[in-house]
């Protein structure tokens, strides 16, 4: 049994994990940087340990201080939250080696899925459709040309150890390949310390969908349906919804079944997500996020599962006692991320409340939005019986928000929720550019 958890994260996600600990009667110890001493996670936690100065490299990425803090605070487990060390196989291994429970997949699973080439191989082996592309890292230009002509242009070069849009290059014809390959290698080396790149078919207008899974590592894998995360700005998700307005029942079933099978073959343990690109009636495996995701509340509201609670219970060795037919997905959920566009002291902070609305945040009036970390201010998540009602509820909720002292994307989000393409459900990943950049031009 887990009696105490060290939470190696910050912001709203640290608060989320603290709340799950409280609900389970588990002592929550928050590891924080000096910049975060006054934040809500520290305030709500049973105990807190300062693990370093503001820069993430010396605090939230400082494995050693985090593990020592967990040991000296007599914690049984570490919850890595999202981002930071949550998908770092070496950290997971070090946590295990220190005799602690890592709340997440086994370190081997993280290591395998962290390598894009290996992950694609695993997906292929499990029978998942992948975008046509090189299975292996590109050896040289000749190899690249051969692969590209098989796949068909446009192709995209990706860092094999990468993620988050870095080290990616789109190549539309063979004459551009040499320069692009050199550049992609250079960036891959720079950002991820590994210059291996592979090649995939580039989809011009795909939707980003992901399947949420829960797996006990003992043979039971459940899916909680999909999240449609197609509204993005520079590869950062802005709005996430479930169910997707464009997914047919047969496509949904196929994607969910594929995802469950992949997790079964991986012997996956914990919560995780399989990401897909969908174009027309085809879908392609993209990657596995071997951790909790920022947008997890969307799935919590349609399934009424508590994903963080489930993560902790699975880490305790509890088997999932339910089967897929016990998972009732009902209604519609939508998450809107309110991001800061500037750092500073928040003078006024009014969040919506009342029926159908959930707010996950760590800020209040007087808090400082730190320049050191990501700019997520709050997640506003709504549930309604239908998408149409849900969009109304979200508009009502956003209208209640008041944030003064820092600039935010609130007005942009209001525009997106209210725009015709979004309400119709027919839009691509360029929606933000079309709606918000247009607006700026007119302003």
């Amino acid at each position, binding site marked *: 049994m887990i009696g105490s958890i060290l939470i190696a994260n910050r912001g709203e996600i640290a608060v989320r994990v603290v709340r799950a600990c409280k609900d389970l009667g588990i002592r929550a110890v928050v590891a924080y940087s*000096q910049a975060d001493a006054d934040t809500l996670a520290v305030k709500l936690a049973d105990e807190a*340990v*300062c*693990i*370093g*100065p503001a820069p993430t490299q010396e*605090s939230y990425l400082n494995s*050693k*201080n*985090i*593990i*020592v*803090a967990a*040991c*000296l*605070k007599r914690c049984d487990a570490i919850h890595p939250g999202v981002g930071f060390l949550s998908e770092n196989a070496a950290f997971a291994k070090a946590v295990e080696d*220190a005799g602690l429970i890592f709340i997440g997949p086994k370190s081997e699973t993280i290591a395998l899925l962290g390598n894009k080439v290996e992950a694609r191989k695993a997906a292929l082996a499990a029978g998942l459709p992948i975008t046509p592309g090189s299975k292996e890292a590109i050896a040289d230009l000749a190899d690249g040309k051969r692969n590209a002509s098989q796949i068909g242009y446009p192709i995209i070069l990706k860092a094999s150890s990468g993620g988050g849009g870095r080290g990616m290059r789109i190549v539309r014809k063979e004459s551009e390949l040499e320069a692009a390959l050199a550049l992609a290698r250079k960036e891959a080396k720079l950002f991820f310390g590994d210059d291996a790149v592979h090649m995939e078919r580039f989809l011009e207008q795909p939707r980003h969908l992901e399947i949420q899974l829960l797996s006990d590592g003992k043979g039971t894998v459940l899916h909680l349906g999909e999240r449609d995360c197609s509204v993005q700005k520079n590869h950062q998700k802005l709005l996430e919804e479930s169910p997707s307005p464009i997914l047919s029942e047969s496509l949904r079933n196929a994607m969910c079944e594929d995802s469950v099978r992949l997790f079964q073959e991986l012997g996956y343990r914990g919560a995780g997500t399989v990401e897909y690109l969908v174009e027309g009636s085809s879908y392609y495996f993209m990657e596995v996020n071997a951790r909790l995701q920022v947008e997890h509340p969307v799935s919590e509201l349609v399934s009424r599962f508590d994903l963080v609670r489930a993560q902790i219970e699975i880490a305790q060795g509890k088997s999932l006692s339910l089967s897929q037919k016990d998972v009732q997905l009902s209604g519609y959920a939508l998450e809107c991320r309110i991001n800061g566009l500037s750092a500073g002291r928040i003078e006024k902070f009014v969040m919506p409340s009342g029926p159908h609305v959930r707010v996950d945040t760590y800020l209040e009036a007087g808090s400082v939005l730190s320049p050191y970390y990501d700019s997520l201010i709050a997640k506003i998540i709504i549930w309604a019986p239908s998408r149409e009602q849900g969009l109304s509820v979200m508009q009502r909720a956003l209208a209640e928000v008041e944030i003064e002292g820092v600039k935010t994307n609130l007005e942009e989000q209001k525009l997106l929720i209210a725009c015709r393409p979004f309400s119709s459900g027919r839009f691509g990943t360029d929606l933000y550019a079309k709606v918000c950049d247009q607006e700026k031009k007119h302003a």
Partner: protein
Amino acid sequence: MDTLNLEQVLSLFDNSTLSELELSCPTYTLKLKRSSTEQNQARPSAPVAKVATAPEKPAKAEEKTEIITSPIVGTFYLTPAPDAPPYVRVGSTVQAKDVLCTIEAMKLMNQLEADYACEIVEILAKPESMVEFGQPLFKVKRI
């Protein structure tokens, strides 16, 4: 401007377009602020008058102490081994590079060295207890 001529400062400020002024010297700190409504109005120059000030007394030099904090998370030890004498005591003087304490983290004994020659004024952390990053360990006085 060792002797603060307040009148002159005020006059200069009054005739400027500033809305705030802060002035510090070893003896004084002065802050002036003008509300936004008035600062745009034209003002007559302040009447000048002679201000008699006594010669400044030298500020009594306070003993400057500094705090040495923990650079890592770990367990704080004042002795290299259970029975060994402590590296330092209150009143000890150390040279730069002298060891002040060890902080154990993951079975490794990390020796914390002094950055400069100093006298130990106070030991702030409890021996054999956990210390966090940035936690005060020693109050010292440079020598």
